[in-house]
């Protein structure tokens, strides 16, 4: 159950391989591995850079609390969250969630739960820098609404 908050770029393939390698070392109760990777999107072709600010003291503990919640709720063998901060370019990986479980339902649900909570409850703020200037990305109602489905 690892949480990493870092400025450095990382590679989806390398992280997925490392996550799977720790799983396959010694245990045979894992049938499903899900990964989600978030990428800097530039729909309009005007984005020069994305910058993510975070709350250093709070970020990793807040994400760890989400992972603990997911672990309590679903039967998970392992979970990983990596989230970057600082400047990044269109096409670069922003963050990644990986889950491993005996069955696919648990792995998918936990990954979606973590994504929904990371979007709206982890202390990150995105700023888009375009030719026209810089602006903070507004929170989406849809992201807030997505949390409703996890209410007990």
């Amino acid at each position, binding site marked *: 159950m690892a949480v990493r908050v870092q400025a450095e770029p990382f590679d989806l393939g390398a992280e997925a391989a490392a996550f799977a390698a720790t799983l396959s070392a010694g245990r045979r109760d894992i049938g499903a591995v899900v990964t989600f990777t978030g990428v800097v999107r530039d729909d309009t072709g005007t984005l020069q850079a994305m910058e993510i*600010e*975070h*709350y250093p003291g*709070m970020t990793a503990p807040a994400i760890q609390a989400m992972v603990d919640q997911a672990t309590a709720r679903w039967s998970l063998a392992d979970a990983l969250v990596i989230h970057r901060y600082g400047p990044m370019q269109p096409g670069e990986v922003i963050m990644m969630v990986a889950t491993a479980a005996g069955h696919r339902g648990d792995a998918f649900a936990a990954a979606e739960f973590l994504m929904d909570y990371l979007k*709206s409850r*982890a*202390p990150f*703020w995105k700023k888009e820098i375009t030719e026209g200037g810089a602006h903070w990305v*507004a*929170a989406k109602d849809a992201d807030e609404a997505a949390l409703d489905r996890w209410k007990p």
Partner: protein
Amino acid sequence: MIEVLYFAWVRERIGLPRERITTDAATVADLVAQLRDREERYAMAFADLGALRVAVDQELTDFDAPLKGVREVAFFPPMTGG
């Protein structure tokens, strides 16, 4: 003495990332009222509490949270990670 932190556009409007504040405010809302009275830039940053979120000692909470024994309060817009 409370460490007060600002993030994203709250930080930009107020013009600094953190400051130490000596206050007798009983709740976060009381602290916000005192900050608003300080200067125009604070009044602007705290104009719409519905557009703000608050963490007390690095836990998300509400504006009516008490400040007794608290070391750190952070103000910021809704998060947009992931």
